[in-house]
């Protein structure tokens, strides 16, 4: 009914905005990663020095490996923790109102500032923190557990708590959509609970897991705040590297770290999108 021209007219503000403020900055980042960096300035002479430095330095290449390791751990833990919760909300709660109420309960902590929520882990995990006090009072441990705070573990705990909801939501949505008669039918035909889980629930919830994995991946890979708040600056992720490089005006180097991060992320998301078509799931 509407002409093609009308469509593009409606689209133009969005397209212009995205081109100028999303595509152009990203292209600029790739471009600058090949510039020549001197101590205090940067010149647009093309070179791969920053790239070579990045991959030959233990600090920076180590940060890349650490980022990937922490990301993968957080991703696995969010799936392992999130799936049972989503299964409970999606399959075992039949009342729609209660289902929504439970999901809303999971989302409410998001209405607190992200940074303050991260900081609140410090009095939880510290040597004299809530968890250690509680465990000591209950007589489970004698001396406080010290690995809880200012370690990789605390960063992982913090990230799982913040991002696990992005896993629960999509999975619960997919599981909730499963037709109840499908499961009843399978049961009537003698399928065991395990078979029903493996043959019906698991495959049908897969798009949810993948969407959740994409959410968690892009958020964890771009993280730096949790690491700097809960590791006492001991755990440096690629995000932290970018922050410090920008702080010392090493633009080309920051850009290299940024491009590396983008490539890692894009590869994973592309693989995931091969498996599920995001647009059809809406």
């Amino acid at each position, binding site marked *: *009914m509407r002409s093609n021209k*009308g*469509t593009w007219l409606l*689209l133009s*503000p*969005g*397209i212009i*905005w*995205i081109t100028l*403020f*999303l595509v*152009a*900055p*990203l292209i*600029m*980042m790739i471009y600058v990663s090949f510039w020549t960096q001197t101590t205090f300035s940067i010149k647009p002479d093309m070179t791969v020095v920053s790239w070579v430095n990045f991959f030959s330095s233990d600090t920076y290449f180590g940060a890349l490996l650490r980022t990937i390791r922490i990301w993968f751990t957080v991703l696995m833990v969010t799936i392992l923790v999130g799936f*049972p*919760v989503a299964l*409970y*909300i999606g399959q*075992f709660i039949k009342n729609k109102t209660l289902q929504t109420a*439970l999901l809303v309960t*999971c989302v409410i*902590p998001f*209405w*607190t*500032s992200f*940074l*303050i*929520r991260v*900081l*609140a*882990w*410090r*009095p*939880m995990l510290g040597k*004299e*923190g*809530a968890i250690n*006090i509680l465990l000591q009072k209950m007589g489970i441990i004698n001396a406080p557990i010290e690995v809880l705070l200012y370690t990789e573990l605390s960063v992982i705990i913090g990230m799982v*708590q913040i991002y*696990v909801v992005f896993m629960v939501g999509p999975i619960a949505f997919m599981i909730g959509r499963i037709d109840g008669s499908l499961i009843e039918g399978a049961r009537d035909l003698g399928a065991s*609970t395990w078979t029903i889980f493996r043959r019906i629930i698991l495959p049908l919830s897969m798009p949810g897991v993948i969407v959740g994995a*994409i959410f968690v991946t892009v*958020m964890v*890979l*771009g993280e*730096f*705040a949790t690491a700097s708040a809960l590791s006492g600056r001991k755990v440096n992720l690629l*995000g932290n590297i970018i*922050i410090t490089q*920008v702080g010392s005006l090493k633009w080309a180097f920051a*850009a290299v770290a*940024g491009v590396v*991060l*983008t490539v890692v*992320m894009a590869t994973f998301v592309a693989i995931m999108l091969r498996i599920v078509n*995001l*647009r059809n799931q*809406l």
Partner: protein
Amino acid sequence: MDKVVSLRWFLGIFTAAFVLFLYGPFIVMGILSFQQGPEGGPQFPIIEWSTYWYQHVFGLAPPSRIAPLPIGEALIRSLTLAFATMVVSTVMGVLTAQAFRQPFRGSGVVFYSVILGMIVPGVLLGLGMVLLANQVGIDRNWWSTAFVLHVVYTYPFAFLVMLAIFNRFDESVEEASLSLGVSPAKTFRKVTFPIIFPGVLSAMLFAFTLSYDEFPRTLFTGGSDVTMPIAIYGTFAVEIHPNLFAFGVLSTLFSFSLLAVYGILLTLSIRRQNQRASGLQEDIT
């Protein structure tokens, strides 16, 4: 069947533990915000219950060695920025979703480009924007370079919400209005908009809260005048005090009141629509 029952119990307990895990820091924050001041630190045990840190947040506490949070200006900046972001991204989201109601060539590319805005990590976008601003020679300010990135971030949310609304939209209502000779602009105002209003409200809520709490994009691009999240991020390096927790509790309450306003507006609009629908029916019969 027994197996299913025990599975249900296991998952129920697991979910309860999960909720406790989600709320743990939240609860600790609430408790510690009532720590005694100014000597009491952000840790257990509570020396003495007091509202000292709340007074501290509002600048009512007697001066001490702990600097007050830069509430006034930073908060106003954050709220202004969130409001502007909300308006622009909601309008663009509605326009783009409206365009997507008809299939067109290149819709896939446009769809994923828009979604990219919410996916690309803030640090990367912030970095790219700074490099671009340096190159073009633009100053970095919260109302310019940071603002455009906030919109890039929230606009996809608004777009997706509106897309979902339009997917469940009965087009014949609009067609009826148009074929009766009502102009497209008036049709949008009188017919389309009231139907999509709940979606618009949700998009606004999303955009506002996301922008208000946004900081990786603002960190590089915000310039020297800090917004509230950047001010909080600044405290990461130094010692933290319970005034942050008191502020956290207050800002959570503020968010809840926003949520309440959203709920009230939504209920009102649905009720009004029902009333109008029944009124129409009475007119016909």
